[in-house]
């Protein structure tokens, strides 16, 4: 294996950015191929690490800051980070491909003029955003993590602000503020952790539960992440941001929310198990409330993208529920469900984008009978919905199954509250999920084709390829879950030794 592979991956993702900007100004949309190649290249490189992380970890450290605190710039690839970053970048690469026809339409329809400058900005920010999120997942210390986290926020803000629909100023600011409230709480947690254990290294947190104040550090970190994952009450930014961003941006934003938050929770929070155990039942309840609340909200939506936004908010909180069970099955389920959900939500935002692209509408009441006109889109929709609904053979079945088993185990061990949460998450929430999914398919794809949609043509080839690729990965991982669960189990064994 190449030495220093991780730093090479990071550099490969970040360094082309200026080049993308400069070339983009002359090449226009063709620059997307550079971004796609870069993201796919890193994804493939990560795929090569899967077998290594099943028995080993890859750790690279570079000296970075020596004063006032000494920090190393560390990169860690293990059973947790590799599958997650792989899936995330896979979705990102797909979104890049998808964005070419989509953004062309976005420019031609609306208030933004199409120019090479715009294409250059879009792809530069898109690449930097994806690279920053990926870099978060490899970071070994909290300052480095936070730096990439902030970078990701800035670039996503720019994407929403510059290319969003509607009142993009308001939406992007809402996004910026809320995520910074979360970021602020998270920063408090980071500083608190330093105060407590005297180090920013994530590895040094392992015994934090023995220190006084660990509870508050854990609480601050958790609350910070709850904003990012749109827990009920902290979700004000989510529907608007998701639904008013261009579809490929929504796709990566959605995938980031669920995957980065779950990654961070499952990386940082297990050491806090002893101190957070008492309130974790209430966090599970909070997650359940969000799942149910957003699920019911999803039932009411007429706008395809708002539907996906609420659906995503609802489903993401399964991961919170899973992590806070603090039992091996729960955490394993949360991680694998976040991978499933990241895939599915990317897919579904792209589906809503494809529908907008072809029907020029986001209003489901104006749709119907599209199954025949858009066969690839309905296939992709079903793949996404099956994943989210936890129906085999999609990967969601396995993940939700593990997650809910974990919740049940926790319920049996802890008490009534946790047991009831687990039961309701498995029953009522599942039924609501099936309800809005099948209602949507029915409204959009079945019944009579409205007169003005008679001329709808099939989606462009690149869109079709992206949709099918994401759908196919979900089914492949569903049939052969060991591909991702084997590395994940190594990590789970590491944090919950027998």
């Amino acid at each position, binding site marked *: 294996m190449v030495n220093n592979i991780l730093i090479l991956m990071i550099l490969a993702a970040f360094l082309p*950015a*200026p080049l993308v900007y400069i070339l983009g100004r002359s090449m226009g949309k063709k620059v997307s191929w550079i971004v796609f190649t870069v993201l796919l290249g890193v994804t493939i490189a990560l795929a090569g690490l899967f077998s290594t992380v099943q028995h080993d970890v890859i750790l690279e450290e570079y000296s970075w800051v020596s004063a006032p605190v000494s920090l190393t710039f560390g990169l860690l690839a293990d059973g947790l980070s590799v599958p997650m970053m792989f899936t995330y970048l896979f979705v990102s690469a797909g979104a890049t491909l998808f964005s070419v026809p989509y953004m062309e339409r976005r420019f031609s329809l609306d208030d933004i003029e199409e120019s090479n400058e715009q294409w250059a*900005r879009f792809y530069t920010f898109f690449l930097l955003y994806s690279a920053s999120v990926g870099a978060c997942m490899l970071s070994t210390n909290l300052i480095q993590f936070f730096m990439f986290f902030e970078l990701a926020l800035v670039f996503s803000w*720019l994407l929403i602000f510059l290319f969003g629909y509607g009142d993009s*100023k*308001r939406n992007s*600011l*809402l996004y*910026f*503020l*809320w995520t910074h409230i979360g970021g*602020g709480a998270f920063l*408090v947690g980071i500083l*608190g952790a330093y*105060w407590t254990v005297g180090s920013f290294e994530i590895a040094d947190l392992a015994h934090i539960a023995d220190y*006084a*104040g660990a509870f508050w550090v854990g609480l601050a970190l958790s609350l910070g992440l709850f904003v990012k994952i749109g827990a009920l009450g902290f979700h*004000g930014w989510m529907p*608007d941001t998701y639904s008013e961003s261009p579809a490929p941006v929504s796709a990566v934003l959605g995938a980031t929310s669920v995957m980065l938050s779950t990654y961070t929770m499952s990386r940082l929070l297990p050491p806090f198990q002893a101190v957070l155990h008492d309130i974790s039942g209430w966090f599970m309840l909070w997650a359940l409330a969000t799942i149910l*609340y957003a699920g*019911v*909200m999803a*039932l*009411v939506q007429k706008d395809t993208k708002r539907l996906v936004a609420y659906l995503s908010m609802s489903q993401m909180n399964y991961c919170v529920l899973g992590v806070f069970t603090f*039992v*091996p*099955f729960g955490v394993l389920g949360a991680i694998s469900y976040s991978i499933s959900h990241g895939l599915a939500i990317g897919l579904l935002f792209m589906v809503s984008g494809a529908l907008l692209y072809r029907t020029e509408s986001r209003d489901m009441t104006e749709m119907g*009978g599209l*199954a025949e006109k858009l066969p690839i889109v309905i296939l992709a929709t079903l793949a996404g919905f*099956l994943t989210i609904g936890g*129906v*085999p*053979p999609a990967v969601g*079945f396995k993940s939700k*199954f593990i997650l*809910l088993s974990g919740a*049940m*185990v926790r319920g*049996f061990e802890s008490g009534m509250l946790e047991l009831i949460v*687990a039961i309701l998450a*498995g*029953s009522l929430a*599942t*039924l*609501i999920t*099936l*309800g809005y999914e*099948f209602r949507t398919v*029915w409204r959009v*794809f*079945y*019944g*009579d*084709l409205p007169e003005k949609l008679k001329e709808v043509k099939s989606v462009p080839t690149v869109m079709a390829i992206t949709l099918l690729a994401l759908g196919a990965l979900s089914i492949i991982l569903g049939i052969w*879950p*060991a591909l991702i*669960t*084997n590395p994940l*189990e190594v990590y*789970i064994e590491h944090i919950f030794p027998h």
Partner: protein
Amino acid sequence: MTVIETIMQHPGPFLAWMLPIFGALMMPVLGRINHKLRDYGAVAFAFSAVVAAASMVPDLLSGHTAGDIKLITWMTLPNGTPLEFGVLVDPLSIIIANVVAFISFLIVVYSTSYMHGDPHLDRYWFLFLYFIGNMLLLVMANNLVMTLIGWEGVGICSYGLIGYYYRDAKERWLGGPPPTEMYPPSHAGMKAFVVTGIGDVLILGAIFILYYYAGTFNYHDLIHHSTEWLSHMAQVPGLVALFAVLLLGGPIGKSAQFPLHEWLPEAMAGPTSVSALIHAATMVKAGVYLVARMSPVFYVGTWTLNLPEAQVYFIAIALVGAFTCFLAATQALVAVELKKILAYSTVSQIGYMMLGLGLSGFSEGAYIPGLTAGIYHLASHAMFKGALFLGAGSVIHAVHTIYTFNMGGLKKYMKYSYVLMGIATLSLSGVPPFSGFWSKDAVFLAALEAGTPLAYALLFVGVVSAAMTFAYSIRYISNTFRGDASKYIHDMEHHGHAPHEAPKVMWVPIAILVVLFSITGLLGLVGVFVPNLNPEIFIEEAMHNTVHHLLPPEIADQMHVTHISGTTKLIGAGLSALALAVGGFLGYNFYWARNWDSWAWVQASDTRKSIHNFLWNRWYMNAFFYRVFVDGILNFKQVLYDGFEAKALVPLSDVVASVSQSFSEMTYQVLEEGAIFGVINKGVPSVIIGAYHRIKKTQTGLLSMNLVYVVVMLIAIIVLMLETGGF
């Protein structure tokens, strides 16, 4: 041993489900090449499943079945146990796999003609083969997770096939005639998936409980070690009963038993071949199979561990089965859609199977007879109901109407269909010597063998339902084929479209089924004198073998097969005869000979009219479920959205937005001047400055106030944490 080697060694149980699933994937590909190739390909793949299933039959006959064969480790459970995917080859799975594969194959052959010319056959064949593959997967699976995968696969295919005519053209709607409400096919598909989904959620709960206590999903391990984990589970009062009820939830949904039965009458919205597949061969049988498969666990619980709670499993399913049997039979008496009558009849007949399985736990000696009754009736029902549905398809194909009042007098146009459906109807009604008589009789015998007061009460319900079965059978067969042709048929004839017999490729599969259940029935008759040839005794031994291999040896050895005494058999036959006499008398006079006018009889009395309305409206259960669950949830969510999310949260977001405008002003100053983001500043200055200026224009006067507010809040939080000893 590698995966390939394992499959090579035992090809039957694996290929039975792998080939149809592979075939399903091939359908869109073959469809691109040539339509004929695709259609014959579908037949070939369905046939390959028959061959694979049949290859296990010699083992069944010799009594040496392969048992649990593990293929791959799907994943490792956190407790370290590997979850190994594989198959469980025992008499129970072999019998059901053969019934499923063979009848599905006949339906596939029938479909090639029935669906001829449909423009979306790629989708049809894909779903059809995938359906068959998943059904066989769930039957052959060696663990509950794999069964659940097949289970959900069957569900998703049924959703696609019931809603096959998703364009919802008016002539495809069901229910009615107006003013009774009608439903489009896509709605019916969704209803099937969601209602069975309720059951799936329940069974999932049971599986989670099971995992916690047993730590495995493998059937053999579960049953073999049931004494250990059941006694552990029994320490929590009520848990075993809860587990039993949750576990039954899945089968109750899948097999359309009360209270989750309302989806099945609408499930014939798809093509009739699909109805035959769902009603006769596959889906609804899945529940019966699973109840039988898990029953040894509760047998051990009830009789070895003496846990009264374990018996809840049997009592609950017996009650549900008997009640559903009665409920659906009453509805079949008044229904006017030919396929819907058959659908109610399916619900009712599955009630008998469930009743049989339930009775198996009423006394220790009734276990094998009860199990036998359930499985025997499953196999026999699969044959005659398959024939009936396919026959109904031929009729509907010929006359283009679903209502029996638009038919009448069809026997002169469709002789074969009349004869074949007539014989199948006799079997359904339980007329000797057809298979339906023997298998229904087996249920009665199981009740007599159980011998408790509750068993006798349930037996009474079963006998009353049997009488109704004969009555409604005579009703639909007379209304369809006998009497004078309706005005509708005359009109058809007038326009030169006289109804015609179905083509050979459609009636031959029906004939094969009729021959099969007739032979089974005759063997039953011969078997009275030559026990070796009796199908019932064959199934009884097969069930005994199945249970014997799964149970721990010390329990299995104590189990003995009780042979039902001659007197009991006579009583059972007498009860059947009584039911036939009563049902036949009423059916003959009302419908066959039409001595009495049934409609006038109903209209003559208010009580009868209201009973008729009650039955016609499906005991008001359908309306009740819609009112409470569908409308209830839809209204609730609107109230929640309008009242809370829209009124409270959106204005709040606006407030937050204006605050954030100010906040971002500050952030961008930091961005511009700060050292950390200096790099970005240099890289993309124009954008940031542009943004900055745009924001600056909309800045509110409350900037400083908002900033102060945010800072004060942050300080307050930190102080609070310090005060409470956080740091």
